[in-house]
């Protein structure tokens, strides 16, 4: 269970939000909403510990995430504006390395099948730098399939994706929630997960 209480965050002289609290239980999904520049990205990065909040506490099953650190990271999967893939490596190598670092051993067959599911058939062994914008995003999203993280933090996962890929991501999120995962995300595009209710947090 992720609990955030009384969080405040400012960038430069600009107070983005304050007194923000939220709770996310197993199987729940939450969308952070707000216009451009309202602080959605900042909120998600604060949850991952990249930004020190000015005030407030973030706890994971009761413990402050600052103290847990590695334990918390083991149950966290963050997908940011960047794809976090190496241009020179193939999609396959990228996926295997990032799984390896997360402590998961992934044989080639598994990795290839994850990439195929994301529509990268025939592109698995090309260096990712030659892929298109959307294909690169798909490589990054393949991490959703191989990890065993409980909490997904997704910052605009749908950018650059075509309609088919959007449907696939919605399906993946649905599966994850079905397995008692939690998801917190932002997007400016419409996103529907079957008939699961998405709780919304608006930054004004």
């Amino acid at each position, binding site marked *: 269970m992720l609990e955030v209480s009384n969080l405040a965050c400012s960038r430069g002289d600009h107070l983005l939000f304050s007194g923000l609290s939220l709770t996310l239980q197993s199987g729940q999904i939450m969308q952070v909403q707000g216009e451009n520049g309202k602080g959605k990205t900042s909120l998600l990065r604060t949850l991952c510990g990249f930004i020190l909040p000015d005030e407030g506490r973030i706890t994971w099953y009761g413990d402050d995430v600052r103290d847990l650190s590695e334990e918390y*990271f083991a149950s*966290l999967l963050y997908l940011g504006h960047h794809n976090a893939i190496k241009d020179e490596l193939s999609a396959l190598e990228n996926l295997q390395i990032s799984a390896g670092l997360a*402590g998961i051993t992934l044989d080639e067959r598994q990795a290839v099948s994850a990439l195929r599911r994301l529509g990268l058939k025939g592109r698995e062994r090309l260096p990712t730098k030659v892929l298109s914008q959307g294909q690169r995003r798909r490589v990054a999203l393949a991490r959703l399939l191989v990890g065993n993280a409980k909490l997904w933090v997704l910052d605009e996962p749908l950018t650059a994706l075509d309609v088919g890929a959007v449907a696939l991501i919605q399906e993946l999120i649905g599966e994850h929630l079905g397995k008692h995962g939690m998801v917190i995300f932002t997007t400016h595009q419409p996103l529907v997960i079957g008939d699961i209710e998405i709780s919304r947090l608006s930054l004004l």
Partner: protein
Amino acid sequence: MNQLSVVHLLVLVVRRDLLLAMRRRADVLTILVFFILVVSLFPLGVGPEMGMLRKMAPGVLWVAALLASMLSLGRLFSADYLDGTLEQMMLTPQSLSVLVLGKMIAHWLVSGLPLVLMAPVLGLQFDMPAQGLLVLMIGLLIGTPILSMLGAIGAALTLGLRGGGVLLSLLVLPLCIPVLIFGTGAVEAVASGLSAVSNLSLIAALLMLCLVFTPWVAAQALRISME
């Protein structure tokens, strides 16, 4: 918990970085060629007197090694920072210090070791005696890892800053000066018939010290830079 053992993690990180280096093989070669070029520029600038060149040789070789590894340091973390993979590394449930140590080792293998192997050949061009060459090589062998490690701290601190490359040199070069002094001191010692052991063991001591502290310091620097 998905925590890996230290050795396993080191192997993973070193292999990753070596794989990347293999994909851009040209880079490794260019560091080496840069080294050769800088060393060869000096006789051009200074003039061809052999006696003077022989005396300059250890200094020039060491300074060139310093500059070459400084240059390649710029990319130690910044490539990973720009494409977001560093961010992801920091989110893995692994020890950041070990991860950083792995990157330091890989950096040395790619940019330090080739210099060490190349140095004797260049030394010959300056007419250095065999014993001097040996000491030079040993000095570089234990000295260049220090450059990689101290450099890693600088690279971490200047992460994502514009003009990082030059700023990095400014921060790191002063810290590397003791290595330079002991390294050239060792060669000069043998040249004047003394023993090089004391100088070399000072470098070795520095290496130990760095091995213990720098991974942790660089990891802290990374955390600060990522905030």
